[in-house]
């Protein structure tokens, strides 16, 4: 049951925070446990952006090398451990993808993908996700598509322009405006 799997994979923030703290002190066992608890999720993010294959594997490797080196930078007062880890996974994957200058084929429709991953639950994360979805719904359809394609699959401005058959300048202003509206809606 996928729903149950997701819940099992959702670790207590305090556990991850503690593992990061120990990792920062050079505790290899804590680091290995952190890997076991979070690599599945981070790998899923890497696969979504870079496709299944060597690129995503390399990105995951790079991601955990970065986590080992920078664990002491994590500040629990400024966000959940999982957000910090996910941001690193995104960056590692995007960096690899950009360096390669190419991207894997075949993107599912992003709105569908979002529906699929946004199964409601009662946790705070569920509430955040619902808020984000309702704010995304307020955007115009094609700009919303641009934002989701960029975030979910790591498309560049140029790739978005090709994909949506509009000039790059249009993509830029859509994104700028959509992000502004998203912030207003989410922070309201």
């Amino acid at each position: 049951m996928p729903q149950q799997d997701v819940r099992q994979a959702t670790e207590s923030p305090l556990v991850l925070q503690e593992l990061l703290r120990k990792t920062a002190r050079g505790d290899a066992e804590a680091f290995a446990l952190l890997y076991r608890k979070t690599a599945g999720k981070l790998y899923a993010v890497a696969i979504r952006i870079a496709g299944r294959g060597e690129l995503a594997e390399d990105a995951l490797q790079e991601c955990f090398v970065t986590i080992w080196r920078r664990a002491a930078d994590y500040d629990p007062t400024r966000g959940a451990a999982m957000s910090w880890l996910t941001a690193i996974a995104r960056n590692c994957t995007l960096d690899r993808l950009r360096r390669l200058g190419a991207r894997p084929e075949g993107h599912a429709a992003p709105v569908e993908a979002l529906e699929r991953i946004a199964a409601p639950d009662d946790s705070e994360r569920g509430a955040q996700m619902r808020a984000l979805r309702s704010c995304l719904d307020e955007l115009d359809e094609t700009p919303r598509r641009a934002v989701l394609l960029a975030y979910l699959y790591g498309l560049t401005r140029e790739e978005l322009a090709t994909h949506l058959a509009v000039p790059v300048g249009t993509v830029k202003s859509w994104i700028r405006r959509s992000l502004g509206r998203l912030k207003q809606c989410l922070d309201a």
Partner: protein
Amino acid sequence: MNYDNPELRDQLAAEYVLGTMPRLVRRRFERLLAGEPALRRAVEEWSGRLGPIDEAADTEEPPPHVWRRIEQRLALPGTGSAAVPRTGTAGLTSRGGSWFGSLAFWRGATLAAAAAALALLYIAVRPAPPSTVVAVLSDDKGEPGWVALATAGRGNLSVAAVRPVALDQAHALELWVIAGGKPQPLGLLTPQPGRPLLVEAALVPRDGVLAVSLEPAGGSPTGLPTGPVQYKGPVLPHAP
């Protein structure tokens, strides 16, 4: 560009998190983040806004060789890989020779003060892999106040106090690197031993000087030192 403009800051942070910045702009932005706490906060805020998408995602079991490669690359202790580093304090004590060599560079520091600093260092870095001193920052009397260490296998330097430093709530101690041009901010220091500031090693060149200035709480508002320089020290020639 003026990163004091909150709107611009927010726009850049949003596009960075979304991932649509071109590669080189992205690189430049990442370099800026190290010295711009407000920009870093804006990025964290945007990660928080969009992050639920990732956190709600499914999980995928990575192939086992990924972890084996990570272990190998980091030469993690106790993992049975070929290059297991000496752990604990071995890295500090067994390299006594080169450590004493580096003491010559502790300009103005008395041997007693150096020994005290070493003793504190010993406590601060005990669980970590072998470390090398990159710079010792002393006050105008030659008393060492801060030390920058490089740790084998890590791409950053840790800069920590060698003894508690008095600091009131209205002020902060900011670390700078000077290498030819204007001082570049590296971040705010914690005035307690054992709580290092981590700095990208690539930002600190071999011919550079590290300096600590007294700034208003939150750090220099201008991006350049505004208060007196309280500690400084050159990057040691043998630094990795």
